[in-house]
């Protein structure tokens, strides 16, 4: 049943149109994808139940126990103010994961909208929108984010906003390309010929076909968003210094270089999560290679 529908609904020249079940079949056979999924689910789980899991409050200072090496009481040691590193690392998941997701979701929505409109209206409107988009791509990602956050003032909301500003252009480019392709399909022409209004054609006929590719691009991108957010926060342009944000904790840990547990554990938290997302992304990329090859 599903195989028949996948044959009839797919156009052979487009790599996006592999049916969902085929994608899942390949994903399940890729051990790295499974490892990635397990780690991501684990971190999501930790983020939700961090308050219940952590033995101490992440902000609770205990100066008598400052800079303890990892031990039975403090599994990952304590920092310069005697705060429990283990609790802080667990709570950090509550900051970094939602921040990364927020960047991706907002960035992809804005990018999809801009790209879809540009591709659909064509002509001068398309030109203007795409030149505008290219301007934002002329800056290396974090540089523009850095400048925007510096202008707005360091704060977690501003960091996310700055990242959304640098994140949407790549989605706009991809979606515009897709819309251009879909626009010439017969079913779009059919919608035109029965007199459907433009907005209906764009939002009901064309856009739904762009959702899958945008979601895949987003999956490939989450790890990157998390790492850039953590870097911004490492530089001091994220949440306030006391908050248990991973990047921030690493940058504080640098001043206590010999107390390796202060930077190693939060650093590993970022690395494990990003790596897990990249495992999944890599698996997806392998399956959908023809279209994604050459993009990073």
């Amino acid at each position, binding site marked *: 049943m599903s195989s028949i529908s996948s044959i009839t609904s797919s156009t052979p020249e487009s790599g996006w149109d592999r049916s969902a079940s085929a994608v899942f079949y390949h994903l399940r056979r890729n051990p790295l994808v499974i490892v990635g999924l397990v780690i991501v689910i684990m971190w999501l789980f930790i983020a939700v139940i961090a308050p219940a899991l952590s033995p101490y409050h992440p902000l609770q200072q205990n100066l008598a126990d400052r800079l303890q090496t990892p031990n039975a009481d403090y599994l990952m040691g304590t920092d310069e103010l005697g705060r429990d590193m283990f609790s802080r690392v667990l709570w950090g998941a509550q900051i970094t994961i939602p921040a990364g997701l927020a960047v991706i979701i907002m960035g992809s929505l804005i990018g999809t909208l801009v790209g879809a409109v540009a591709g659909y209206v064509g002509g001068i409107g398309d030109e203007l929108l795409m030149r505008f988009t*290219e301007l934002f791509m*002329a800056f290396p990602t974090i540089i523009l984010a*850095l*400048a*925007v956050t*510096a*202008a707005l003032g360091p704060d977690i909301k501003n960091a996310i906003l700055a990242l959304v500003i640098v994140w949407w252009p790549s989605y706009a480019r991809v979606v515009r390309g897709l819309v251009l392709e879909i626009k010439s399909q017969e079913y779009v022409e059919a919608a035109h010929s029965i007199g459907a209004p433009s907005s209906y054609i764009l939002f009901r006929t064309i856009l739904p076909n762009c959702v899958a590719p945008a979601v895949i691009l987003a999956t490939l991108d989450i790890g990157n968003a998390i*790492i850039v957010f953590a870097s911004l926060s490492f530089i001091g342009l994220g949440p306030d210094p006391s908050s248990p944000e991973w990047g921030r904790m690493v940058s504080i840990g640098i001043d206590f270089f010999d107390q390796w547990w202060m930077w190693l554990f939060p650093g590993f938290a970022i690395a494990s999560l990003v790596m897990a997302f990249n495992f999944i992304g890599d698996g997806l990329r392998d399956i959908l290679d023809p279209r994604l090859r050459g993009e990073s």
Partner: protein
Amino acid sequence: MNFLRYLIRRILFVIPLVLGITVVAFLIANAVPADPINANLPTNALNNEELVEAFREKWGLNKPPIEQYLTYLGNLLQGDMGVSIKTRHPVRDDIAQFLPATIELASVAIVFGIFLGVSLGIISAIWKDTIFDYIARIIALIGVSFPVFLLALVGLTVLYAQWGIVSGPGRLDVIMRDPPHVTGLFTIDALLNRDWDTFKNAFSHLVLPAMTLALYISGIISRITRSSLLEVLSMDYMRTARAKGLKERYVITQHGLRNALIPVVTIIGLSYGNLLVGSILIESIFAYPGIGRYMFRASTSQDFPAIMGVSMLIALIYVGVNFVVDILYYFLDPRIRVG
């Protein structure tokens, strides 16, 4: 298409981009902060009505936006990017002082990075789906997944503090003296001065930060090399080359790599942007006095003029490098010359 026409077309493409960068920088500098005067002047100058007035006059803040932009552009063309709040020097002078160190680091890093990335990619592609492929891909994944500051810290702990096989922070050991200033690149200056000790010392200080940056950019380079080479390997002309009885090594290097490396060149241009970004994080960890550490310090101390100056500089370097890549393309890809 002849070279001159190609060159002119690329330049015509770059000009609006450069202008666009100045527009975006202008918008961030003047439209985004709640009060540009507040953001650009140190606190003690804010009470001085004369200084505030002079600043407003210089950047045309009391004029309409278009004129403000033209003033901004005019100042910029004279190399005037304002005065750093933290160092109190013109941003231009600060950049001139710190840029050579970064150019030196980035150049060594890009050489390491290309070598590492291309080698991993070739290994992966030739021995696809073997254990070598998996190991090479996991190294590449570590490069893109581990935050570059963590790589730097682990490198410092193991290679410098534990094993002592590379030099640590800074550009030279504390007891060494800077080589006489010619290019500002310590290794080159030391060589020009025939000062081998300084050269060795400067290079040994470069190894660890450059390797960290190289690992960071090699992930993407190896991924592209792998998929590009895999595609080329499946081409008919590869089978023909083998059928002619050419040695496998010759087939891979002369027929395979030459064609596979064309897309890799593009990625190297794009990686240069990552490299500059990585240097902000790396240089601060290695106390390496380059533009990245300058940017890091400016960011942590809200030194807005310095942040904007360096951002624009990096964007311009990025555009410049990609322009060079486009030019290289002309020589690498015969399709452009013919088509």
